């Protein structure tokens, strides 16, 4: 068994990796759906509940001050981690989905007028598509798609063309159909494509269009710098970066924060409450109604600390090695159709594919019999799957603990699937 220095170092930190599934060691390769948790993340939450648990912001007693410190320090840790100038721009949510809905409802909805547009790409996750459909319908606006390369047919290299973006934005200006926002994923959860966010933002801003970055897949895979990217909004989830469920982040630029109406109403987001109307707290509290997920913030801060300790450059290098190996193996088989960039350029370790004439469900089920966890389905990207001319696919997605030998186990198990279904 080949174990890289990185995996040798980190595998012990993840208790779940000791599990056997159907008699085989667990090979967890569904990291794009959710990641496993290192001990330090689990422990941080236990420590919070065993020592500091209390509600935040409103108590003067010791526990309440400790909990508030943990919560606000979490905000600072996140701000530093993604290169935000200060923690006032960090809003805690329940996940990427809620972060995006927050922008759709508190920022886009009050601005958007009939006939205006929101630009999305064909590779967006439903969580970065459906909120815009809902708000567009409410406002008589419409979605306009930045298509995958090339513009027609089913096949694609899984990339977006910057020239095309420039044209589409210019066209909308000519048509007097104002584009209020471009929303784009930093890393595709199906194709593995890594989009050039800094360039995209530059082009969009040149046309006066703000940009939201869906960083759900990106944060655990590369260093993020919202200040260098200059994006207007950025959203991600704790559970996809080795942190807890139930917690997410929205970063927003100062100007955008100023434009945002309240999202949900409730405790903590108010200034003064009258019988019919109220006034609001300053950002970020204005957007955090109700008791926040304090234990989850302590876990998220631990996850971010863990990622920094292991090192994002090291993680990226490790993922590159895994991806290189997987691409080599894919090239060996004519009956495997791989989607997304065929080389490691512009690509991360999310690889979706189909085994000819075998349904993805059946492939995933056979792999599970060998202890391998991969996902089968449309991965919440029905528009993309339709564009690729398929209903579903199998997806393997790497985490920092995965090994080359686990990839090889997939290809052995695929042989087994061939034997069962194609014999």
């Amino acid at each position, binding site marked *: 068994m080949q174990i890289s220095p990185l995996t040798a170092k980190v595998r012990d930190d993840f208790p779940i990796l000791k599990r056997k599934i159907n008699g085989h060691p667990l090979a967890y390769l569904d990291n794009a759906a959710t990641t496993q948790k290192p001990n330090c993340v689990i422990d941080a939450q236990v420590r919070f509940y065993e020592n500091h648990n209390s509600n935040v912001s409103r108590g003067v007693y010791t526990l309440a001050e400790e909990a508030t410190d943990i919560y606000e320090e979490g905000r600072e840790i996140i701000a530093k981690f993604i290169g935000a100038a200060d923690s006032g721009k960090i809003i805690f949510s329940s996940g990427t989905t809620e972060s995006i809905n927050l922008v759709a409802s508190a920022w886009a909805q009050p601005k958007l007028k009939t006939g205006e547009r929101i630009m999305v790409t064909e590779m967006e996750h439903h969580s970065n598509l459906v909120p815009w459909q809902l708000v567009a319908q409410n406002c008589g606006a419409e979605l306009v798609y930045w298509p995958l390369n090339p513009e027609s047919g089913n096949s694609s290299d899984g990339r977006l063309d910057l020239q095309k973006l420039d044209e589409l934005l210019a066209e909308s200006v000519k048509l007097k159909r104002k584009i209020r926002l471009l929303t784009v994923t930093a890393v595709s959860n199906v194709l593995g494509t890594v989009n050039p966010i800094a360039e995209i933002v530059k082009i969009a801003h040149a046309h006066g269009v703000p940009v939201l970055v869906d960083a759900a897949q990106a944060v655990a895979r590369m260093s993020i710098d919202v200040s260098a990217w200059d994006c207007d909004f950025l959203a991600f989830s704790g559970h996809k970066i080795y942190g807890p469920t139930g917690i997410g982040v929205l970063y927003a630029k100062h100007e955008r924060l100023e434009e945002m109406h309240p999202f949900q109403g409730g405790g903590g987001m108010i200034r003064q409450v009258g019988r019919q109307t109220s006034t609001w707290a300053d950002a970020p509290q204005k957007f955090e109604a109700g008791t926040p997920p304090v234990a989850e913030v302590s876990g998220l801060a631990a996850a971010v600390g863990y990622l920094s300790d292991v090192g994002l450059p090291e993680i990226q290098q490790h993922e590159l090695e895994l991806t290189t190996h997987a691409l080599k193996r894919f090239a060996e088989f004519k009956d495997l159709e791989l989607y997304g960039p065929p080389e490691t350029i512009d690509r991360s370790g999310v690889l979706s594919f189909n085994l000819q004439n075998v349904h993805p*469900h*059946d492939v995933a089920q056979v792999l599970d019999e060998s202890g391998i966890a991969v996902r089968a389905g*449309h991965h919440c990207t029905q528009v993309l799957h339709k564009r690729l001319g398929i209903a579903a696919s199998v997806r393997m997605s790497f985490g920092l603990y995965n090994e080359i030998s686990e990839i090889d186990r997939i290809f052995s198990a695929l042989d087994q699937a061939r034997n069962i*279904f194609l014999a």
Partner: protein
Amino acid sequence: MTTPSIYRDLLLEHARHPKNSGRLESPDLRASAFNPLCGDELELTLTVSEGTIQDCKTQVRGCSICQASASMMSELILTKTLQEAANISQVFTESLQKDTEEIAESLDSLRPLIVLKKHRSRIKCMKLAWDALEDCARQNQT
């Protein structure tokens, strides 16, 4: 290499060579079913005469379990009345929900499916054809 337990021979046989596959040209009843979790689709077409199912075809875009279930269903319901078929469907659904391993006699031919019920994520695959059947039965009532 052994065949994984979930893919028993009979199931695979039905999946590879599904019975009554395709679409009837002028069906009396037609229903589609859709699995939002994976995008699978199925269309059931029936001809019915005096309440009895005369002919039945299923057009499936789905996994082997979905395919096999549709095939087994078509064999089981042919020549039954729509009401009888709907009753079988209900007993089948209940047996998938129950914790016991007992299987009603009327469902004997579905045994290879029912034993897979511990794979809860696949229940929707097994049920797709039956969802369409129940839809047809409802259409017939109204």
